[in-house]
């Protein structure tokens, strides 16, 4: 565990002192601010709230993008460490598969949590400036995002542990994310089309097919968990909300254990 802590500190330090994270965070916050500004302009010109919670959508956008970014940087960093031989170097010493995976994962997860706290501070400041109160559901969503983010990062760590190169790890991870978002988006888009009631209509078949895929995906995708958990929480269904948190933790642990096993089989050499 001591080794994992040392690696955790090193990775955290590298990420915090690197420029990319700061650029990414600044851009994310700016995008969030732009969305809120557009809402405020809408309110100013129409005298209406566009949605009950002004901050939920921009915050959800920011944490999803942040989760994907942190998971992606974990994928690249670990795969690059193997490709450069630095992973092998670590295993010359008293580093084993478990301490390596935990060290790497915990560094990325801590980073994600730090960014969530940073975003929270920014949104609290915005709330203060605009005079719009942040509802309790916002904080519940923030709590949920910690667990869904943890799950998403564990997927990234798993992909990097079992892949053969930086390129393959990057492609596999991006393909996973893109296909998940594409399926969810397509299903939502197709469900808005109202086909003529006909059992042989291809749109209907596609809707049904994507609906099944969506049901399957809703059990696996961290994005689905976030959306579902927020929706259920807003409906007051706290059992479903807690179930989503529990499932996120379970899947996170499954992927961390799979990462350790995957690393054992894949090996640390280039």
């Amino acid at each position: 565990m001591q080794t994992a802590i040392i690696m955790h500190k090193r990775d955290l330090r590298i990420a915090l002192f690197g420029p990319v994270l700061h650029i990414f965070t600044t851009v994310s916050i700016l995008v969030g601010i732009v969305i809120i500004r557009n809402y405020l302009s809408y309110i100013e010109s129409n005298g209406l709230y566009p949605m009950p919670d002004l901050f939920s959508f921009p915050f959800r956008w920011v944490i999803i993008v942040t989760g994907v970014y942190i998971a992606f940087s974990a994928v690249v960093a670990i795969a690059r460490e193997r490709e450069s031989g630095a992973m092998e170097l670590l295993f010359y010493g008293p580093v084993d598969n478990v301490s390596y995976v935990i060290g790497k994962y915990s560094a990325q997860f801590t980073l994600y949590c730090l960014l969530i706290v940073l975003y929270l501070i920014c949104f609290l400041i915005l709330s203060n400036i605009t005079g719009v109160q942040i509802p309790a559901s916002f904080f519940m969503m923030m709590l949920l995002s910690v667990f869904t983010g943890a799950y998403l990062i564990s997927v990234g760590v798993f992909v990097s542990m079992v892949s053969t190169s930086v390129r393959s790890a990057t492609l596999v991870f991006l393909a996973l994310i893109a296909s998940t978002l594409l399926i969810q988006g397509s299903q939502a888009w197709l469900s808005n089309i109202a086909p003529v009631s006909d059992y042989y209509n291809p749109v209907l078949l596609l809707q049904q097919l994507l609906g099944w895929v969506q049901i399957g995906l809703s059990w696996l995708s961290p994005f689905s968990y976030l959306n579902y958990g927020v929706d259920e929480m807003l409906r007051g269904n706290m059992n479903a909300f807690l179930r989503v948190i529990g499932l996120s933790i379970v899947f996170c642990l499954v992927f961390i254990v799979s990462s350790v096993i995957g690393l054992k089989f894949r090996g640390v050499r280039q």
Partner: protein
Amino acid sequence: MISTRNLTKTYPEVEAVKDVTLNVHAGEVYGFLGPNGAGKSTTIAMLLGLEKPTSGELSLFGTSLENNYFSIKNAIGVVGENPYFFDEMTAWEYLSFHADIFRIESKENRINQLMEHVGLRQYANIRPSEYSRGMRQKLSFVRALLHKPDLLILDEPVSGLDPHGIRQIRELIEEQKKSGTTIFISSHILSEIERTADRIAIMHKGKLLVEDNLDGLRYSVDQSVRVNVEVTHVPESLPTVLSDVPYIVDHNINGQHIEIRLDGSSDHRAEVSAAITASGTTIIGMETRKASLEETFMTFTDDNVVGLSKAGEVE
């Protein structure tokens, strides 16, 4: 210290290491020789637990790596063929990080002492990517020595270094040898192994051909004694005289230099000297020459003569 029995590593397309049985004793320098692709690095990877053997047994410090992973890893220092570093760290940060992993107390003193010793102290705050290859290799040595290991595993430590760098690394190895560290050194630079190793193993095409000290290796490939003689002039009768001497296996005259190969039954130098002088010339120099490690190595690894090596150790 290191012991393997029938160690085998098979990949889908190739059998990289086949039934390797070797023993490295405490305190010795063990030279691990073989041409490129012989299976040396795969064997080392198995010793370090980086590759899982397909079959066979392996023990370090009398125990298996699975049972005592952390205690064994804490007692080993490794210098790999390619010195790996972390791009974002200076040399000092790199060593400090490794010192933390090995939980070294008063790491600052230890790092400064070793950096001073290898002449890198003034470059401690520079990133290793800006170092020369020799400096990077020395830094790898410092990293490997930080925790005062009982066993040092060196994989091609002087590969790609200039003569000055090779000398510095050799001095480091000799210092460690004097301090009693067991050293397992893999290389295809034979002169380095010849200088430092107490015992030598030769690998070829995944198999361990032989394991012995240098004299034992020489003897196993060639029992004859080579004598080089320099004379003032070569009389016409000299070739006949040499051919008539029963214990001279063969000879070769090149100008004033005569290379004679004697059977190894006993020391015949006095008789050779007398025979040459009797032919009417004067000897101005004579030296006995042993087969070099390179010649021995080539004999062992040459497919055509592999069968000449020690009976029972080679197929």
